[in-house]
């Protein structure tokens, strides 16, 4: 999920400078040896299995078609490829020799069994919020998985990112370990939602942008982020012009998170995988709690800068006309004459904020690649959208994207053909 952690450019000189200056006075986190255990949980293994689902551990720690939790999935980033570790209880290749304390140290402090610093591609800035009882339950569950003695390949990172010791600096700058502390001013449901969203759910790993050193932008948490290499935009969950969720009914949001479709939206791209593997399996009260918390987030309005090419003024009218014609030929049967859609099979486009984000990457990729929402227990046979990449040229895709972003009262920006060209070559998968 955390494919877009760092941005290169300034990082080399800055790191070297900072490193030289502060290395020796860096405080290591005082690691408390917590004595709390999972003893008060009736069935820690079942509990751990559920928590592992909520954390979507399987998604990153399993290669495509590979043994569950045996690692080996390659996470491509601008800094090189991270290869996820084997977390089965295999003695040599996995976590077989780890104790519950070792596991807690990884989740809570971002340190391996041997004390080495872990890359934050493993979202420990989120997992540090997990309490000790849940950590122990996760550990108990992972002990029950079939061990796979198969060591994944090494990370292939560029210099200086391959210098693991630099993570000491990263942690000093950006990481503060600490279990989620309940907000006494909120009720138990809200706090449960916050615990799941901020911790196990690690929503911010995609939806919070990063600064140039790969640190999360905590002043704009869940404020939206363009996922490098993957080329999807994880929309802001706090900006009212994007995916701020307060405008949907609780029922719609719960439906979207647990089935992949609602009367307003459908999930796609990386979020389809999150729903498919994780959210659809959560207990309804937990999804309700997450929805409650997300809808309570204070609104912000700080759109993420888009460096996408802009359509010149003199081309806008022609683009509209062309786009409308294409829409009537190709889209109208499912999305309706007035963009009203036919939810939940086909989401409405009129008033759909997913279309209006400053960065048009998601709209363009939907038109190019089409696809299915995830097939879930609540929506086991989803309706699909044809990919139009093979049949429409860049100008046509831009025209239809421009039309749906501006028709029926939608107030999005029009899309230039160059933006389509840019995303056409991104592999759909």
């Amino acid at each position, binding site marked *: 999920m955390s494919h877009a952690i760092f941005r290169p450019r300034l990082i080399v000189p800055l790191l070297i400078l900072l490193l030289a200056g502060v290395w020796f006075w860096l405080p290591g986190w005082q690691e408390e040896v917590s004595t709390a255990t999972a003893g008060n949980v009736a069935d820690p293994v079942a509990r751990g299995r559920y928590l592992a689902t909520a954390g979507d551990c399987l998604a990153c720690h399993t290669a495509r078609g590979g043994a569950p939790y045996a690692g080996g999935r390659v996470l491509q980033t601008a800094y090189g490829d991270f290869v996820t570790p084997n977390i089965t209880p295999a003695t040599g290749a996995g976590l077989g020799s780890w104790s519950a304390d070792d596991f807690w140290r990884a989740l809570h402090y971002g340190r391996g069994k041997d004390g080495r610093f872990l890359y934050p591609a493993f979202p420990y800035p989120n997992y540090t919020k997990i309490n000790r009882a849940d950590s122990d339950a996760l550990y108990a569950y992972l002990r029950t998985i079939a061990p796979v003695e198969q060591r994944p390949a090494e990370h292939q990172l560029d210099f200086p990112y391959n210098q693991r010791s630099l993570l000491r600096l990263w942690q000093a700058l950006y990481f503060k370990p600490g279990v989620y502390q309940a907000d006494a001013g909120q009720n138990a449901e809200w706090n449960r939602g916050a615990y799941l969203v901020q911790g196990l759910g690690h929503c911010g790993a995609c939806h919070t942008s990063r600064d140039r050193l790969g640190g999360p932008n905590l002043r704009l948490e869940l404020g939206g982020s363009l996922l490098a290499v993957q080329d999807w935009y994880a929309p802001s969950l706090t900006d009212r012009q994007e995916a701020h969720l307060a405008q949907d009914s609780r029922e719609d949001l719960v439906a979207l998170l647990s089935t992949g479709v609602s009367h307003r939206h459908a999930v796609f791209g990386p979020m389809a995988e999150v729903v498919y593997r994780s959210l659809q399996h959560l207990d309804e009260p937990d999804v309700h709690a997450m929805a409650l918390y997300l809808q309570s987030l204070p609104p912000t309005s700080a759109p993420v800068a888009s460096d996408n090419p802009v359509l010149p003024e003199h081309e806008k009218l022609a683009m509209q006309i062309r786009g409308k014609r294409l829409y009537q030929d190709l889209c109208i049967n499912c999305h309706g004459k007035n963009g009203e859609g036919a939810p939940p099979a086909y989401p409405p486009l*009129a008033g759909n904020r997913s279309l209006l984000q400053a960065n048009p990457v998601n709209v363009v990729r939907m038109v190019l690649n089409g696809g299915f929402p995830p*097939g879930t227990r609540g929506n*086991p046979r989803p309706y699909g959208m044809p990919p139009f990449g093979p049949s429409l040229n860049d100008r046509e895709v831009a025209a239809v994207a421009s039309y749906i972003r501006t028709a*029926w009262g939608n107030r999005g920006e029009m899309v230039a053909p160059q933006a389509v060209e840019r995303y056409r070559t991104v592999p759909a998968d």
Partner: protein
Amino acid sequence: MSRFWHSIAVGLVGMLSVGTVAAVPDTLAQRLQACTACHGAQGKATSDGYYPRIAGKPADYLYNQLIHFRDGRRNHPAMVYMVRNQPEAYLREIAQYFSDQHLPYPAPQAGDLDARASARGEQLVRKGDAAQGLPACMQCHGPRLTGMLPAAPGLLGLPRDYLYAQLSNWRNGRRQAATPDCMARVAKALSQDDLVTVASWLSTQPVPVESQPAVAASKPLPLACGSLPQ
């Protein structure tokens, strides 16, 4: 108009028009427009010259391919994207739907093989080449080359470029099937010339009127294939 009233207006328009929308047909044909955009109406292929016909292929074959795309044994990015978040029950249903579509085939592609190459192609398909370790295509893909139940696809009515790409991918490991991967063995035993010849020859053959897959073989196949139920 304030944003508030604007959204109210949009909402009202939306509500009004919802009542006029015809119900979405609760059919697989409606659901699977994502597939037919490239594979043609009902999966009978288009004239684009690459995307294969899927209509009428054995359901087990189609299902195996969907699972291969999901699990990394096949890698066409658009296909991986389509199937990766779908439950197996739905993929099974999709495979059955396209397998049940029996539609007439268009005339085959025009060929440019000379007599000698054509004879070689026909020999490989009908007889194989024992010296090269090559069984005849017909032994597994059916006497009419229209496939053989439960999981061997027909080889006729497919574009030459598609056939060529599949054999090449099998040879270099980009396409795989369940182990033991019989087609990988065949593709690796083919010379480059023979590979081109056999793809070309197959693409120029008319599909027989009786185009359904043959019943399962009663005797063992020449090679062990992991894709078949053991």
